[in-house]
Each structure stands twice: as structure tokens, then as C-alpha cells.
């Protein structure tokens, strides 16, 4: 039970604190936090420099692969600098100042947002995989994009460099406006890269959709930032997260006492959340991500799978203290993530385009991360980001290799048995490694990170439903993942080339020998293969992170947790076993009390008679294997050609449901009907109102003199005597008036 006296005390302390906190906040200067060495700016500056160099190459008409090598070198050095930053990090966060950006002073107060960077373990964690993957994918793209060598090649790598720069600003910025700069910057690069094949109307439409849907989220983020500034008076992390007001709110929130926190503060995370949903493609703003697959595959791998779409997770992790102060924000995050995970998984099951399946699986996995953040385990969410980044990049790059080799063919009904085609061994192995991670096969990285989230959902009070849904979704994930693998890479050898619609200049020269239908697939070269090998190794190695890097003192079990717990995202769930034990040992009456209510110690073990963290290892392993087995039975067992399998007759039994899932549950059409069309009608109405009413009134004023003239015009007869008569008449009247006035004694 909650100790009411203590609670009231806390409220009164908080309330007493509130009025005079502002002064103390403002007296805190950001210089309290140490400054770091300037070479860290290399991480930001180099990608920008490579981007500018690519622009220069475009101007001078470079026709070699120089842009790719420049970008690989730039991103590579940035990665090395990140590693150096990691190795030299001593545990205390610091900032690095590049230059002043926006500063407005009013009286003794100020709004400051500098071009500065905030380095803590969360930043380092994120930057390590951002720059690392950027290097690898740039290397991959050097080969993948090679038939576009020339201006387009420069354009691609220019935008690529700009993306890495923006992502670095997003992750490393030391204030919310810098985060917003990166946020919009990655949005721009995403726009430019999705629309890379700008002659294709679908690519242009997808790019536009991505930017606009993201902007809706950005609005939420922007408003949240403004509210943060207005409420806490600062935008800088270093000041914000040490703000006594905020700390007071968190203290109140820890015992679920949300009445003590003003509504304004509770709105901030809800607005941030909308931004995160847009950028990380969560329901209801996820519709742009599948369409974004119109971009070149390296872009899909880097931006739309591994890095940019995790920006929403980063945002929530970074501002986790703010999220804790809201009663509804985290539950909404959890539920939205769960619903997205389930919804996207069902859609992925019914798709035939392998790249789109991967896109929906990204949406689904992002849903897991959000659910993790929502059920009070930022560690789980952030850990899943890392593992997912590796295996999803790997999966996308494998799909890209397939697409590249088979002239744009992505339909899993037209590809089969690639395992046995010469030169595709590495791709097959890479794909398998990616698939087992995604499916959550035991002892893979994906297995561990997903389990952390699901188990925590069972621990936190009131969210066990989320746990069950996520567990079910895990089964679906295993099914659709291996559906792709079994159909495309296993089974009888059969392939039909695509219509090469992703390549403008085509490369059908040299494809004249052998193969099915006279088509000869074009096996990946050394750059692609080496990247695939590296990523495969990293994906496997990521599972090792679950066993290393724990810190006994900080009660952290593994690497990701250590990194998260020493950053602003640090949050120790009060429902965890060790937290309850610790509270009980110190006779804290609040043992088992947390923002989501009180956990009954008897129910500490809610499922199947074991600690959820332990039980989850077994349960989710079973779920994953069942999913894979189903996929094997339905899609591989007894399949004789690429197009048909055991699933087809079963799918028919479900009636319209598979068709609806294939058409993405008609969400796009729904949005078009509910939002776009009415808004467009309103716009047309406004257009006509503007033309007829607003401008009409103006024109009416213009016509008024004319109308008046039209009324009095007949008096102008044109006859001379007429004028003379009116003149004489006027004179007479005037004289009469004067006469009357004089008769009455004149003017006084």
C-alpha cells in the first residue's frame, strides 16, 4: 500500500519547490558539465565534408567511383573517431562546442541552442552502430550503385554523407533543437534518397509521402520542444535533466503520484511521442515506411531499417525522464508499439515482395522497441535497436543483392532455391543468419533482445496483455521470416528476372548466357560479399553482448544495460526483483510501488510458475521454433515450383482476410478517405471562398463608387439648360436659406 503521509509530504515539498526553482535553474550554466576534446567534431564534420566533396565531384563531372571511396573513407574515419571517443570515455558526460547557433536573451533569461554535442554512453552506443553501419553500407553501395556512376552516383553519396551528418547531429546534439535539426535533416535525406529514381512517379510519390507523414510527427516533436522550453526554461540536456523541477516530478512519478505534476509537463512526452511515431513508423504514422522501399536498397538498409527509423527510440530513450513524468505517455507508447508490432506482422505475412516484407518486419520490430520503452525497460528497447540494426541491415542487403542480381525481381513467387545457384552462397548464409535473428531462434542476438522486452512486459503490472500479444507476434515473425527464406533460398531452383525497373540505364549486356529463360543472374561482387560477411559476423557476435559488459555495482547484467543505465535513459524498474529486494531490505514501505501502480509480491511471478525473465527463454524459443516449423511445412515441404506451396489452399479458407492483409488492411485508402480527400475538398472550398468571397468583397468595394455613380448618373442630362436650371435652383435654395436665417435674427 502506498504510504499516504509520505506522499503528502512529497507533494508539499514539490509544490514548495516549484515557484523558486526557475531562478536556480537559470543560475545553472551549461558549463557545469565538462567540455570534451575538439576532435570529436570530426564525427560530425567528416560526413558533411564528404557530402560537399561529392557535390564538388558532380560539378567537375567525375565519372569514377571516387564519391563512394570518399564516403567510405569519411564514414570510416568517423567510425574510428567514435571508437576513440568510446575508448577515451571515462563515464562522465561532457559537451563539445562547435559554434553558437540560436541565442535569444530576454532580460536575465535566455534561450540557448548551440551547435554543441553531448556525449554520454547513450550517444556513444548509438554512434557506434550508426557510423559503423554507414561505413559498411557505403562500401556495399559502391558496388550496388555502380551502374549509375556519374552525376547520379555523386548525388547518391552526397545525400548519403548528409544523412550521416544529420544522424550524428540528431544523436549527438546537446539540446533539443539540435536533435530537431538532425531529425529534419535525416528526413530530408530520406526524401532525397527515396526519390533517388526521380523519373519513377512511385518513387517521387513515396518520397513525398515519407516527408509529409514525417512532418506530421515533427509537428508533435516541435511543439513538445517549445513546451519544454516554456516549462523548464531550457533546451539543453545538461541543464534540463538536472532541473530540480523535473527531478521533483520524477520523484512524484516514482510512486505513481501524477496529480502533483502539472498537465503541461505531462503533455510534453505525449507530443514527443507523436514525433517518435512519425520517424519510427509506428501506428498510425507507419504508412510511409513500406513505400519508402522505392529507394535504392542500401538506403533502405541504412536509413529505413538500421538507423533513421530508430531515431524515435533514441528520442524516447534520451528524454526518458520526461516520459516518466507523464501518466499516460509510456502506456500509450507500449500499446502503440504492441499494436504496430502485431499489425505489421500480419501484413508482412501476406506480402509477396520480399523487400516489403522486410519493411513491414522493420515496422513490427520497431513496435517491439517501443513496447520495450513503454513497459519500463529502456534497456530492452535500446538493446533491440542494436541487434535489429545489424540483422535487419544484413537482411536488406541480402534482398538488395537478390534484387540486383535478378534484374529487380523481388516477388517470392518467382524466385526459388537460390541456395543452389552458383555465386549465391554468401548471400544465402547471410540471409539465414539474418532470418534466425529476426525469428528469435535461441541464442541469437534477436532472441535475447526480444526476450528482454517480452519478459519485462510480464513483470510490469497491467501490461501482461502486451506480453502475450508480443509473444504471439514473435511466432508470426518467425513464420513470415522463414517463409521468405524457405521460398527464395530453398526448394527447387527456379527464377524469373524482373523488369529491371529500378535501373535506368540497365545492364543487360553480358546477360545472354544460360539460366532460366535465357537469363543469367549476376552474382554479387567482392564489396557486397565482404559487407555481407562482416554483417553476418556482427549479427552473431551481437548475441555475445548479452553475456559481457555487465557491471555488478550498477546492477547491470550486460553491455547494453550498462550503456543505458549510465545515460539519461537510465531507469531501474521498481518492479524488478532486485529492486523489490533492495527496497525490502532497507525497509522501504514503497517496495513494489512504481509509476504503473503497485505490484503484489505474490504475483511477482505471473506466468507459468517461474521468473518471467527465465521462463521467457523457454517460451519464446518454443514459439519461434513452432513458427519456423509452420513456415517449413507450409512453404518448403513438398514444394515443386516457385509459385505454389501448401499455404495457398489454406489461405483460401480464410476468405478475404489474406487479401486484406496483402492490401495492408486498407490503411492507406482509409487515410485517403478520412484525411486527404476531405482536406483537399476543404482546400478547394477555401480556394473558391478566396476567389469569390474574400476577393469578391474587395472587388465590391472597388465597385461601390461605380454603383453610386450609376445611381446618380441620370441627373447628368447633357443639356446645357438643364445644368443651368439646377444651378439657378441651387442658388435660389441657398438664397432662401440665407433669407430665412437672416429673418430669424442671423447666426448667433
Amino acid at each position: 500500500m502506498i504510504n499516504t503521509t509520505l506522499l503528502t509530504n512529497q507533494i508539499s515539498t514539490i509544490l514548495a519547490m516549484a515557484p523558486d526553482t526557475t531562478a536556480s535553474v537559470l543560475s545553472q550554466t551549461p558549463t557545469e558539465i565538462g567540455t570534451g576534446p575538439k576532435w570529436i567534431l570530426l564525427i560530425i564534420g567528416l560526413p558533411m565534408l564528404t557530402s560537399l566533396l561529392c557535390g564538388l565531384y558532380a560539378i567537375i563531372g567525375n565519372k569514377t567511383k571516387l564519391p563512394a571511396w570518399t564516403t567510405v573513407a569519411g564514414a570510416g574515419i568517423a567510425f574510428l573517431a567514435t571508437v576513440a571517443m568510446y575508448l577515451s570515455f571515462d563515464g562522465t558526460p561532457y559537451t563539445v562546442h562547435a559554434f553558437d547557433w540560436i541565442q535569444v536573451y530576454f532580460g536575465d533569461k535566455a534561450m540557448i541552442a548551440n551547435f554543441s554535442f553531448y556525449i554520454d554512453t547513450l550517444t556513444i552506443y548509438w554512434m557506434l552502430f550508426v557510423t559503423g553501419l554507414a561505413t559498411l553500407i557505403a562500401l556495399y553501395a559502391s558496388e550496388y550503385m555502380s551502374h549509375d556512376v556519374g552525376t547520379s552516383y555523386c548525388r547518391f553519396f552526397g545525400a548519403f554523407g548528409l544523412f550521416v551528418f544529420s544522424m550524428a547531429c540528431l544523436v549527438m546534439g546537446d539540446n533539443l533543437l539540435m536533435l530537431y535539426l538532425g531529425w529534419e535533416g535525416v528526413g530530408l535525406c530520406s526524401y532525397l534518397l527515396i526519390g533517388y529514381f526521380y523519373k519513377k512517379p512511385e518513387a517521387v510519390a513515396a518520397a513525398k509521402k515519407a516527408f509529409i507523414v514525417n512532418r506530421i510527427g515533427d509537428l508533435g516533436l516541435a511543439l513538445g520542444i517549445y513546451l519544454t522550453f516554456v516549462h523548464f526554461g531550457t533546451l539543453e540536456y545538461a541543464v534540463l535533466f538536472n532541473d530540480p523541477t523535473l527531478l521533483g516530478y520524477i520523484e512524484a512519478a516514482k510512486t505513481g503520484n501524477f496529480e502533483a505534476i502539472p498537465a503541461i509537463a505531462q503533455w510534453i512526452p505525449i507530443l514527443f511521442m507523436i514525433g517518435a511515431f512519425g520517424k519510427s513508423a509506428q501506428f498510425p504514422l507507419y504508412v510511409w515506411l513500406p513505400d519508402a522501399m522505392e529507394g535504392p536498397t542500401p538506403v533502405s538498409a541504412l536509413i529505413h531499417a538500421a538507423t533513421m527509423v530508430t531515431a524515435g527510440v533514441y528520442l524516447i530513450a534520451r528524454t526518458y525522464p520526461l516520459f516518466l513524468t507523464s501518466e499516460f505517455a509510456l502506456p500509450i507508447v507500449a500499446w502503440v508499439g504492441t499494436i504496430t508490432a502485431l499489425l505489421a506482422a500480419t501484413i508482412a505475412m501476406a506480402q509477396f515482395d520480399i523487400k516489403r516484407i522486410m519493411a513491414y518486419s522493420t515496422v513490427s520490430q520497431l513496435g517491439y522497441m517501443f513496447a520495450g520503452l513503454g513497459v519500463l525497460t529502456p534497456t530492452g528497447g535500446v538493446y533491440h535497436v542494436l541487434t535489429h540494426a545489424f540483422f535487419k541491415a544484413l537482411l536488406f542487403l541480402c534482398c538488395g543483392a537478390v534484387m540486383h542480381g535478378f534484374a529487380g525481381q523481388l516477388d517470392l513467387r518467382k524466385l526459388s532455391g537460390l541456395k543452389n545457384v552458383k555465386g549465391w552462397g554468401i548471400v544465402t548464409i547471410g540471409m539465414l543468419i539474418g532470418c534466425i535473428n529476426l525469428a528469435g531462434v535461441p541464442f541469437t542476438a534477436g532472441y535475447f533482445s526480444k526476450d528482454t522486452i517480452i519478459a519485462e512486459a510480464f513483470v510490469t503490472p497491467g501490461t501482461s496483455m502486451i506480453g502475450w500479444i508480443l509473444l504471439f507476434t514473435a511466432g508470426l515473425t518467425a513464420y513470415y521470416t522463414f517463409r521468405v527464406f524457405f521460398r527464395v533460398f530453398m526448394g527447387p531452383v527456379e527464377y524469373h528476372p524482373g523488369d529491371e525497373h529500378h535501373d535506368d540505364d540497365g545492364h543487360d549486356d553480358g546477360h545472354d548466357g544460360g539460366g532460366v529463360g535465357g537469363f543469367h543472374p549476376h552474382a554479387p561482387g567482392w564489396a557486397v560479399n565482404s559487407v555481407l560477411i562482416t554483417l553476418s559476423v556482427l549479427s552473431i557476435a551481437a548475441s555475445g553482448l548479452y553475456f559481457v559488459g555487465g557491471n555488478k555495482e550498477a546492477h547491470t547484467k550486460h553491455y547494453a544495460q550498462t550503456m543505458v543505465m549510465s545515460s539519461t535513459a537510465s531507469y531501474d524498474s521498481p518492479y524488478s526483483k532486485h529492486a523489490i529486494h533492495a527496497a525490502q531490505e532497507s525497509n522501504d514501505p514503497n517496495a513494489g510501488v512504481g509509476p504503473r501502480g503497485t505490484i503484489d509480491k505474490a504475483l511477482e511471478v505471473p506466468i507459468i510458475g517461474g521468473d518471467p525473465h527465465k521462463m521467457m527463454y523457454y517460451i519464446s524459443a518454443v514459439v519461434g521454433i513452432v513458427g519456423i516449423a509452420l513456415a517449413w511445412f507450409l512453404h518448403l515441404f513438398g514444394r515443386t515450383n516457385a509459385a505454389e506451396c501448401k499455404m495457398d489452399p489454406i489461405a483460401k479458407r480464410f476468405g478475404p482476410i489474406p487479401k486484406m492483409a496483402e492490401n495492408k488492411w486498407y490503411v492507406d485508402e482509409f487515410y485517403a478517405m478520412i484525411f486527404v480527400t476531405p482536406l483537399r475538398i476543404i482546400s478547394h472550398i477555401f480556394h473558391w471562398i478566396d476567389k469569390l468571397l474574400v476577393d469578391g468583397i474587395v472587388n465590391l468595394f472597388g465597385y461601390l463608387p461605380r454603383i453610386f455613380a450609376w445611381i446618380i448618373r441620370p441627373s447628368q442630362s447633357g443639356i446645357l439648360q438643364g445644368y443651368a436650371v439646377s444651378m439657378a435652383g441651387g442658388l435660389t435654395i441657398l438664397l432662401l436659406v440665407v433669407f430665412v436665417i437672416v429673418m430669424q435674427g442671423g447666426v448667433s
Partner: protein
Amino acid sequence: MEITLAQMAFPEALPAITMAHYLFVSAAMFVMGLIGFLTRKNMIVMFLCTELMFQGAGLALIAFGRHHLAADGQTFVIFVLCVAAAEAAMALALVVLLFRHKETLSAQAWKELHG
């Protein structure tokens, strides 16, 4: 009662011509001119009528000037006469031109300026 100039020269011969007489004549001239201007259509006659109105006004001016023993009235009338002369020259020329256009002296023939 003030003694007028005429009374000074011929004290008994004539009855006293007072200010009122002059004004009466002047008003009569003006009204005749006005009526003529308003009723006649012939442009030359209308012009003559305006002249008549001018002179009526001029007579009143002279009478008042004499009455107040100030030269302003007369001076002004000299101006009016000059202007009237110039005007006559212009107006008659215009009338001739207008006549040439329409072959009529009627003022009603010219009403293009109606609204």
C-alpha cells in the same frame, strides 16, 4: 438720407434715384438674362443673355461701390467688361465652329456629355 450725385447736379429736376432703383434695374437685368438663358435654345441668344446677367451684376457692383464711396466696385466692373469682351470673341468663334458641325444654333444639339 444720403444725397446722391444726381441730386447734387440737379437738385430739383429729378426725383431722387436711390440705391434701390439701381438694384432693381440690376436685378431685373439679371433675371431677364437668366430667364432668357434658361428658355432660349439659340446659342447666340443664350450668349447675349449671359452678357445681360453680367451687366446686371456689374451694375449692382457699381451701385454698391458708389454707395460706399469705394472704387473697388468700378474697378471690378472694368475687369468684368474686359473679360466679357474677350469672352465674346471666344464664344462667338466657338458658336460659329459648333454651327459648322451641326448646321444648327440650338444648344440641345450638343448633349454628348450626358451620363
